[in-house]
């Protein structure tokens, strides 16, 4: 008795063919038959064929049927695909095998190890220890390499139990341990273990752990109908929830499953997305959130998901993210005030100004807005308009102007910022900004950042830093990534003004860690460029600074604030290398700023640097005029701390010599001047000028 066993594709049939050839060549009688899956329920199918070969009558008694074969010896009986033998053929084979010890008969059969009923009987026979058992030789063929084709072929041959288990595992991400696969397949431990052994034998399950091998899950799922898949996945989700699986696994199941229609599903997806996004895997998080949107939720909750999604999409689909926010602004319903305001705030940060302006205008047009929300939205609208410039389109609905001393904290922040840009009434601006910064929580962050910026222009560095740190905490907590990046950048600027170069550099690196360069808006990247150039020049790395200018993509669209900042960065590099040529860039920068209504010299010291350039070029009169203008504006701004800084800076500019000496002077001055507080620079000047 010989048994050839091996998984599908291992070459059993070929081996049997070679044996048959060999037998025939030797002149021994050969009887070959092959069972098939289709006929496995057809009683006596194989037996009838064998008996026909022998020329015997199939209707005789079982004893007779055995005797016919035994008396026909010497012969070799070859049975291929014995796993599909039908019941009475197996019974006959069993009776036969208990009798062949007396007859010159050899039986060779092949099976695939699929765990069918016939194989169970064969296994039992192999273990038979009675006196009539003949020696049983097993030839085990090696496992062939797994490929898609083979998987597909194998799937056709497998038993229901195995298929069920495979499908369950495929739905559960290919895992078995710690997944609802067993419950899903509805198998008890014993059955599942045996099925697993078979699947392992077939190479579909990894040898070291109960996990589907590569490509199997895909093939198994592909072989199911969509309804089957959906049904199984829905059940997997529910079972997984019952078994309180971890979020990672649950969200993987939910991602593919049809809507569950339960709150827990949304929460699991949302929370896993939050964890993924914090780990920087925003694309994955976005997929989960999009899936979360198909679970039922009230408008406010839905808005929350949309807002979270928009922040995840910043990296790979920023415009889609903006659209989500616009969608939130268009939503109506109870408890929508908070989400709408947050969405407006996030949009305001995004500098996709036309989109954000129109969306806020639409939101303002909602008839059932509360007074406070209306105020806050108006404030944000004002911010957007003043960063982007007045709208150039027709039919823009008039939004009431910002009051001078607003009560709403959002408006206070924006109003302070507005006053500060215009360079007027410093004390009032500081008061407004301080009140705007007193707010904590998930509300709009843009006005708080603006207020902190105002304080940085009034030399109130510690208060500004405290405000920024609060923004960072709230921004991180409530997931406002752009605001966090903006706050980091602002902190970098404040620390530069304070003279802490190392801390400033850390912040600037933090900006990039918070928000990848790819999703920076033009203004953000222009401001980043200025800070980067300043830090590089402060470290005396002029070539690197120049390189930074080159690698920065050129500005697109109309000159605006972003253009002004970029020009400022170019001017700085020029000032350090060839001071006499720097003036142009600074003056252009100034024009852009003035065009946008930014008069305050505290925003960017372009006038001083242009004056330095003039002086280097020997145009002392122009230079003096600019310095004088700056001092006048500083007086108008009326903040004592800043005024003092300006005067010290003015002294430095006055000392810049003309001609070739200028270059040396500026080069000597600049790393320190840029890195340190102007006050420190003043001291430096005393040293250099003796």
């Amino acid at each position, binding site marked *: 008795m010989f048994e050839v066993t091996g998984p599908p594709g291992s070459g059993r049939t070929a081996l049997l063919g070679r044996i048959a050839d060999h037998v025939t060549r030797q002149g021994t009688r050969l009887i070959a038959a092959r069972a098939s899956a289709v006929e496995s329920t057809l009683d006596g199918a194989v037996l009838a064929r064998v008996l026909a070969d022998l020329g015997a009558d199939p209707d005789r*008694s*079982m*004893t007779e049927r055995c*005797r016919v074969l035994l008396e026909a010896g010497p012969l070799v009986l070859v049975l291929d695909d014995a796993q599909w033998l039908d019941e009475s053929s197996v*019974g006959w084979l*069993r*009776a036969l095998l*208990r*009798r062949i*010890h*007396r007859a010159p008969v050899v039986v060779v059969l092949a099976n695939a190890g699929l765990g069918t009923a016939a194989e*169970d009987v064969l*296994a*039992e026979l192999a*273990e038979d*220890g*009675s*006196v*009539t*058992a003949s020696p049983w030789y097993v030839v085990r063929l090696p496992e062939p390499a797994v490929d898609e084709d083979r998987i597909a072929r194998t799937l056709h041959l497998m038993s229901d139990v195995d298929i069920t288990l495979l499908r369950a595992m495929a739905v559960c991400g290919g895992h078995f341990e710690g997944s609802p696969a067993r*419950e899903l397949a*509805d*198998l*008890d431990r*014993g*059955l599942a273990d*045996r099925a697993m052994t078979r699947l392992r034998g077939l190479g579909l399950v990894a040898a070291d752990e109960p996990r589907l091998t590569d490509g199997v899950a895909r093939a198994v799922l592909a072989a199911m109908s969509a309804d089957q898949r959906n049904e199984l996945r829905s059940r997997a989700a529910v079972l997984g929830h*019952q*078994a*309180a699986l*971890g*979020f990672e696994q649950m969200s993987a199941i939910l991602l593919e499953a049809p809507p569950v229609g339960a*709150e*827990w599903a949304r*929460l699991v997806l*949302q*929370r896993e997305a*939050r*964890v993924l*996004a*914090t780990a920087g895997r925003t694309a994955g998080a976005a997929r989960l959130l999009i899936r979360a949107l198909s679970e039922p939720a009230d408008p406010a909750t839905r808005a929350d998901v949309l807002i979270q999604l928009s922040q995840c999409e910043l990296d790979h689909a920023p415009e889609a993210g903006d659209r989500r926010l616009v969608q939130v602004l268009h939503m109506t319903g109870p408890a929508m005030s908070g989400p709408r305001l947050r969405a407006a705030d996030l949009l305001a940060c995004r500098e996709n100004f036309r989109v954000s302006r129109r969306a806020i205008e639409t939101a303002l047009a909602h008839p059932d807005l509360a007074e406070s929300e209306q105020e806050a939205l108006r404030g944000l609208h004002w911010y957007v308009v003043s960063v982007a410039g007045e709208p150039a389109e027709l039919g823009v609905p008039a939004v009431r102007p910002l009051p001078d001393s607003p009560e709403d904290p959002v408006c206070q922040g924006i109003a302070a910022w507005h006053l500060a840009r215009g360079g007027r009434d410093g004390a009032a601006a500081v008061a407004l900004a301080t009140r705007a910064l007193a707010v904590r929580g998930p509300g709009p962050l843009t006005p708080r950042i603006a207020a902190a910026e105002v304080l940085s222009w009034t030399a109130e560095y510690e208060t500004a830093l*405290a405000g920024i*740190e*609060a923004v*960072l*905490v709230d921004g*991180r*907590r409530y997931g406002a990534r752009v605001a966090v990046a903006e706050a980091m950048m602002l902190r970098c600027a404040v620390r530069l003004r304070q003279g802490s170069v*190392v801390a400033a550099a850390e912040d600037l690196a933090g900006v990039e860690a918070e928000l990848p360069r790819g999703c920076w808006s033009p203004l953000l990247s222009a401001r980043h460029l200025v800070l980067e150039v300043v830090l590089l020049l402060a470290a005396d790395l002029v070539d690197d600074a120049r390189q930074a200018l080159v690698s920065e993509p050129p500005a697109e669209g109309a000159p605006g604030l972003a253009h002004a900042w970029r020009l400022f960065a170019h001017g700085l590099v020029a000032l350090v290398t060839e001071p006499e040529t720097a003036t142009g860039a600074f003056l252009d920068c100034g024009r852009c700023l003035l065009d946008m209504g930014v008069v305050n010299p505290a925003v960017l010291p372009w006038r001083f640097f242009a004056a330095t350039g003039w002086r280097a070029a020997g145009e002392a009169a122009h230079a003096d005029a600019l310095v004088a203008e700056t001092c006048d504006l500083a007086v108008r701004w009326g903040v004592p701390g800043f005024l003092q800084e300006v005067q010290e800076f003015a002294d430095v500019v006055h000392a810049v010599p003309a001609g070739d000496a200028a270059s040396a002077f500026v080069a000597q001055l600049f790393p320190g001047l840029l890195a340190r507080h102007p006050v420190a620079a003043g001291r430096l000047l005393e040293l250099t000028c003796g």
Partner: protein
Amino acid sequence: MAEELHGRTAGMDHLTKALRTAVSGTGAFVTVRGPMGAGKSALLRALAVQADSDGAVVLRASGAPDERDWDFGVADQLRPVPAGFVVIVVDDLQWADESSVRWLIEVASCALVVTAVRDGEPGAGIALPGRVVRLPPVSTAGWSRHRLADCLRRQPEPVRGVARAMAVLGDHAEIGLTTELAGLDDDTGDAAVRRLRSLGLVTSQRNPRFADPAVPDAVLAAMTTSEQDTWHAAAAALLFGRGHPAEDVAEHLVATRSVLPEWAIEVLRAAADTALRRGQRPIALSHLRRAVSAQGPGRAALLVELAIAECATDNLLALQHLCHAIQMLGSCRDRAAAVLRMPLAALGVALPLVQDVIGPVERDVRQLGDRDLSLRIEARLQYAGHADLTELTDSTRRLRELGPEPETAGAAERELLTVLSFSATLLSRAPAKEVAALAGRLLGHVPPGHADEMTQLLVKTLCAADSPLDAAAWTDQALAHAVETGTADDQALLRASRALVAVHLGNVGEARLLAKSVLDHVQGERALVGSDAMLALAVVALKVQDEQLSERLLSSPVEVGDPRTALVLDLVRGTDAVARGDAWGGLRVLTDAGRQLDQLGWRNVVFFPWRTTAVRLHQQFGDVGAARNLAEEDHERAVEWGAPAGVGRTLRVLGSLTEGAEGVDLLHASESALSTSANRLELARTHLALGLRLRDRCEQAATDHLRRCHDLVVECGDERLARQIGTHLRGEVRRAELTRTERRVVALAVAGQSNQEIAHSLSVSVRAVEKHLTNSYRKLGVLRRADLAGALSHPF
């Protein structure tokens, strides 16, 4: 009844005799009987071989269950029987058809017929003539599942029922329970057990047990899923009804997927509690998971239990389960209670998740107006941010907001203050003195021996703020208490804390011993030491700088899931690499990990003194600029934090980088800073630095410093440093201090004499010799006898 022969040997003897008689054509009928697997077939086969060699014609046949109805089925396998010396061997005769049996009895008149009958099988009762050889059951049966399943399938329903009941009940299979579970009356049950015994499947004790583990396996394998579910559910109900302990009942509840009865949840909970108390955490978890998988009103509470039990193994999963629970809990107070029951450690793993889940709870609680509750929840939220720079900054701000001398009367306030002071310590932007004072006050409220996570935080805070003395008293008490009542895991955690305290007191010797004992525990099976203890150990290893300890810590089997602890372990890895000679690689690892810790806001220079090692390495590589930058950075931070241990150490590092008088001034500044520090080892190191720096200029002062250093180091138990100083100290300076007798004792000891011999040759007592030697060790700055020779001869 025919005569019976027992055992294989007796049987074989008899068969051989029968064979001899059969040569002459005299027939006989012998039956071999025994349970399954007793070796009947083997005996028959042996006989066949022997008969064959004796020249007999051997005919073989066997019965099969399917062929019982075949008329002459067995006989047909044998016919025609030739004349002469014939031996017929028939296996499994119990399944033979009646005609064949009759035929065989007939043939036995002229041939030797040997048959085997399996006891306990339905057909085993057939009456046969001749002798019976009875084989006893074999203990190591090794039956295959197929044969067992096959055998059981043919048994009548009551027998199968009893087998199933026994398999399902497992260890609790008492006869009464078994019959009741199988739904039989006592008589039927007994009969069924007898049948199983005669099959050899069951032992013959009063309470039947399966003869082999393969048997219950086969029984269970033959049951369908729903059958198993039903049987286990019935078993659970039965055991519950009979008042069995919860864990026995729970075992069956876990095994069934049927809908749980109402009482089941309570039973599972009780069983989980028991398992937890016994330290069988996986079992407890499986009970709780089973309870959780049932839908019901108590599911949320169960999820909380599950989460708490899971904290020791998987903090993230625990947190996620808490999320589920909070979502399901109806009342705000319940949600708050669930959060408060969670161990702190679980809340430190995923900040965004905690903020998403606990943030709303906090807001709700605040609206509720319960100040204590909202402070306690806030404490948790603040703790969750303990590895995030921004949140740590915010915590420090919050601490400042609470004023210089905050109220510590209420437990809720104390919790918040504990967490905030810990955060402030990590970030190190508040004055250490104030933080330490606050932590000291907070510790004053902790009852002696009471060890919880909050107190552990205080211990860390006090250590990092250079005030470990307060913590020392507490850890000692808590440890003593835990030794009496706590589990081994609790003790290990406290020992790790004690090691932390010891190392901040400068007692590296003690710290090393404690740390090693914790690691011994960790190596043990089923030890659960959280990342908290690992963090403490890592800090200890960083400061003790003992290669053996570092290596053991780094190779410990505990999986460190917490990224912060992993970073601190990286610091240890870096230092370890340096100690092993890979200075470049070590420096890289050290700096990377250090910078990352910085970014997390873990900036405490006392806790994480990695820059000192990095400075030394930069200096070695000749990069003085980098060394100085790092040292200055370190010093700036130390000054900001203000703990003397940090300030003194960084001053010393700066001093050793600075040449000339300025350097000496820095070292003196370090000395005076450290004079107020609890860490005496740092002071010793500064004395060493001063001693080395001054030795060319002012020998007396140098010796003085070295001597003070030596005294401190010996006190601290730092053997390596003691040896180092021993070599630094001039041999003669020290030798001069030995008394004449001490010198003689030392000389003899160096010459290799034992204490006994020395005592004898100097005519003094052994005790006196020991005393002289101990004094000499101290004066010479050595720790053991083997070092004496070196100390005497080694020049400066």
